[in-house]
């Protein structure tokens, strides 16, 4: 059983949010704590709670200090931060470490190389591998989505084989197609929107990662496990037609 100290693991992020620190390194067990606390908080929220955002090692809790202040009881302290931090600390003390919910596995079809993945050759050369080996290595592992950030539905994933790790491009591309699958250092990710970016693009998925106004609005969520499945250009077009 982990013992927590409220002043060490909870810090204010200004006067309307706070950060709960649950570890210092990227690790599946820390991720599990972040996820479980997030679920626990959604089930046991408080007046003035707005939302909570998971990251690799933290959960950031956003609240409306005015509503928190108005909800105080005689026995409560007057500071909204104190009221909220005591509430989440109480939840933290009762946090169970085991897995609460089964993880989803999401399969992401990808066309590797060619126009869809213009940097595949660079990644192969950089790591002294063949294209086929890069594709095989990239699609063999199961990845864990630690958090969503940077853009709507953009997954920060862990679990990539270091044999295909490649530094970012020296100068970022001005526009990357939505669905592009890239590598930056030891990370891999998928771009949901057309944005500028410096990742090495090795392929593209026909799936949409950002799906407003669906609820949830993204294909992937923190905690998902994903696998990349190599497909042909023909299959890519079929996926696109299926969708439209």
């Amino acid at each position, binding site marked *: 059983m982990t013992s927590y100290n409220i002043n060490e693991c909870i*810090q*204010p*992020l*200004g*006067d*309307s*949010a706070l*950060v709960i620190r649950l570890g210092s390194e*990227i690790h599946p067990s820390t991720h599990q704590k972040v996820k479980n606390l*997030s679920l626990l908080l959604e089930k046991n929220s408080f007046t003035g709670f*707005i*939302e*909570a*955002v*998971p*990251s*690799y*090692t*933290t959960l*950031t809790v*956003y609240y409306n*200090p*005015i509503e928190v*202040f108005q909800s105080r009881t005689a026995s409560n302290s007057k*500071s*909204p*931060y104190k009221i909220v931090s005591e509430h989440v600390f109480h939840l933290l003390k009762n946090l169970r470490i085991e897995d609460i919910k089964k993880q989803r596995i999401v399969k992401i079809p990808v066309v590797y190389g060619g126009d869809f993945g213009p940097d595949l050759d660079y990644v192969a050369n950089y790591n002294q591998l063949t294209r086929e080996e890069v594709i095989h290595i990239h699609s063999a592992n199961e990845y864990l989505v630690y*958090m*969503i*950030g*940077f*853009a*709507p*539905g*953009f997954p*920060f994933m862990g679990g990539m084989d270091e044999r295909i790790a490649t530094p970012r491009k020296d100068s970022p591309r001005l526009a990357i197609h939505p669905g592009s699958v890239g590598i930056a250092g030891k990370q891999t990710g998928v771009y*949901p*929107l057309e*944005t500028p970016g410096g990742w090495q693009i090795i392929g593209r998925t026909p799936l949409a990662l*950002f799906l*407003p*106004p669906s*609820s*949830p*609005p*993204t294909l992937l*969520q*923190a905690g998902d496990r994903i696998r990349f499945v190599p497909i042909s250009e023909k299959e890519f077009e079929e996926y696109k037609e299926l969708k439209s």
Partner: protein
Amino acid sequence: MSITVLHPGLLATIQDLGRFGSQKYGVIVGGAMDAYSLRIANMLVGNEENEAVLELTILGTSIQFESDHLVAITGGDLQPTIDGETAPMWRPIYIRKGSILKFKSAVSGCRAYLAFAGGIEVPKIMGSKSTYLRAAIGGFNGRALQKGDKLLVGSPNSNISHAFINQLKRNNEHFTWSINFTQLLSFPNSFTIRFIRGSEYERFQVSSQQTFQTKQYVITTQADRMGYRLDGETLQLSEQFDLLSEGVTYGTIQVPSSGQPIILMADRQTTGGYPKIGQVITADLPILSQMQPLSKIFFKEATLEKAESLLMEKENILNQIASGIVIKALHEH
């Protein structure tokens, strides 16, 4: 009921108080840069405080009214005129069909808010009408307003709206009263912004901590709804370290490797990976959001308790303004 955009100006977008609850999916909050001006504009036309309004930036917007409408303009003074006559701000005004409301350029502040009685009729996406430009959702077709756009505006639907419309039609001239906002908001070219220490404050060199609190920073021309890049003495970490991305918010002051701070504004990303030296207190954000490029900032540390009590004070002032408006609408003849 509708309006036609004759000129969008520098940037005109539909905003409410923001899109909450989807940040865990990477969907930004957005919303009005200056929440106080938005709330007062809505109060003045009898709307819910969270109704969508137009946020107009610095210069050039002009709009034609296709029907009579009760509106209010708050925020920075962009020299609004109705058919060439000065349009009064911070009070309800009644604009006649065919009239042209034009904003020249900012003489104070940099964002004006234009509220319509009954609100703006665009769909709520994920709980909000705010425009999310990068993802092309919300607002008017997910984008900034363009020349020729026709916007549907709501019909007045509250007692307050009807009361003001009756008063303005009866007298056929503008109200002489206006909201005194000076305790909430000001439009300085130089201002001391209060901050609370950020998570990585202690990891900056002691000399940089002092620099941050004593030296002047200038808002550069790279200042928009996403963030303000500042220019001043560089801030250095005691030692380099890798920081993992985590949640950030409106007013987070990040310091990238250049050593020049960036203040995250309404359209910030949901997460960030740069060291956070501080966090602007919420009560000072509306003032910061109205500061133009090349304005000067000094930073002064505040305690969390002070930040909370200042926020409560300002909320009380807003409540008093709201009560005052109800009295003006329903108890004056």
